[in-house]
């Protein structure tokens, strides 16, 4: 009898191991295929650009673009433009994050604040706020204040709605028990409501982050000056296509890195939460 049981557990263990190996093999395969298809894209770009089917103006070879990025990195131009863009996008993002969470919290606590801001948020959210850019230029000029303001205006909406939804979804039992145990309003807010709403708030921030980057670049393109967007626009006016494509590659890398970093921060902050369990 015992031997049969041993055999079944052994078979199970073997099945588990092979399943685990299969899964690991699958993920290795996927990563490999990912790297492979990105490499393939770069090679196809290089070959197609050199084939003579398109002019070097329409599509400069990847090697020329890479050289251009390298030259910009050596001369310091790249870091200067990158720094300026990042400061604007991140300043706007941080202001939108703090302001959005604050406004969302106030709205959930006070009826008057909710009454006043609710229609503004629900009407303003789907509007293309970028259309207000010329008005903001009219008010604030062409410098950083105007650029950061348009970023805030665009990025704050998803944060407010996510905060509102997060707070509304907090388990009532948690609130009752905290109050029963004598917790004050402020303590409940900081120690229960906000942590419980954190997953949703972070989702709102994850929506707002790419918006901040997109809008910062549009603002730079429209207003000129330093920054990745401004540099791309200048390059486009002078028909300098390697510099335009260099801009795309740089912006793509920045966007990718920012979004990955945000996902990592989410994972760290939500270690206690069940969504992170099993990873």
């Amino acid at each position, binding site marked *: 009898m015992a031997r049969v049981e041993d055999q079944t557990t052994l078979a199970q263990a073997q099945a588990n191991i092979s399943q685990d190996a299969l899964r690991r093999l699958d993920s290795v*395969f996927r990563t490999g295929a*990912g790297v*492979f298809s990105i490499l393939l894209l770069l090679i196809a770009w290089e070959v197609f650009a050199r084939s003579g089917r398109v002019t070097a103006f329409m599509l400069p070879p990847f090697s020329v673009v890479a050289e251009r990025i390298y030259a910009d990195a050596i001369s310091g131009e790249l870091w200067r433009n990158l720094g300026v863009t990042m400061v604007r996008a991140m300043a706007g993002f941080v202001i939108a994050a703090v302001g959005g969470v604050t406004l969302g919290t106030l709205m959930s606590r006070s009826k008057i604040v909710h009454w006043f801001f609710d*229609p503004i948020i629900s009407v303003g959210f789907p509007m293309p706020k970028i259309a*207000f*850019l010329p008005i903001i230029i009219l008010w604030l000029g062409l410098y950083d204040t105007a650029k950061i303001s348009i970023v805030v205006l665009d990025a704050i909406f998803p944060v407010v709605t996510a905060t509102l939804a997060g707070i509304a979804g907090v388990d009532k039992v948690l609130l009752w028990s905290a109050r029963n145990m004598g917790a004050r309003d402020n303590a409940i807010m900081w120690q229960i409501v906000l942590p419980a709403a954190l997953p949703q708030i972070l989702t709102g921030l994850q929506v707002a982050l790419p918006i901040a980057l*997109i809008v910062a670049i549009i603002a730079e393109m429209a207003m000129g000056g330093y920054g990745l967007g401004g540099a791309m626009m200048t390059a486009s006016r002078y028909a300098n296509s390697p510099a335009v494509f260099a801009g795309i590659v740089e912006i793509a890398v920045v*966007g990718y890195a920012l979004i990955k970093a945000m996902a990592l921060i989410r994972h760290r902050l939500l270690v206690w939460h069940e969504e992170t369990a099993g990873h």
Partner: protein
Amino acid sequence: MTHAIRQTTLRYLPLVLIALGWEVAARLNIIDTLALPPLSSVAVAWVDLVRDGELIDNGIASLYRGSAGLILAVAVGGGLGLCMARWRLLDVFVNPLVELFYPLPKSALIPVTVLWLGFGDGSKILLIFLGCMIPVTIGAYNGARGSDHALVWSARSMGARRLRVMWDVVMPSALPELLNGIRTALALAFILLVSSELIVSQKGFGYLIGYLGSTGAYEGMYAVVLTVAILGFAADRIYQFLMQRLLRWRE
């Protein structure tokens, strides 16, 4: 009924208050009327712009670009997403590219599309197509991957062809997420349209805003900005309404 009307009025009262505050602040010169013309003069400028056809002409140019780009994005992106979910090989090789381009701030494509196709309609349509395709692809892909395998297998075993299965089984179950992806694309289309027209264009809403602003006709500029903002809002609300209609069978 009256109760509902009173509720709606009370709900949107803050917007009326803001409009009133705007008018009063501008009229009493609390804020420089050059930077903030009174709402009533903006309304007058709007009527003038409609009457001499400028708003309509540029509006039609913008709506043509926007809808052409968006329709292309939905057709190609939706198709690609559904196919990726059904054919593993395509998934394995295309998915990394989708993941690579997903976080790309789409506005970076503005100068390239200008480089390729110039200042006219072509560059805007291409920009909106490229920018809006990815959210539609991801929506279709996630939706189709969630479709019930048992349903697909039974349809196959009953002799349905692959395309038939795609259309009758996978597509309906992918619909909710696909429609959500298209909603994101709709908002993105407005942003890309207006910003590309603001930056380089000779026609369209964005061009008109920039032109009126540079000639100092700020009442007109405000009128066009508000028109675009309200159109964007209305488009989203109409889309949401249609989406609920389309998904009614699920209840």
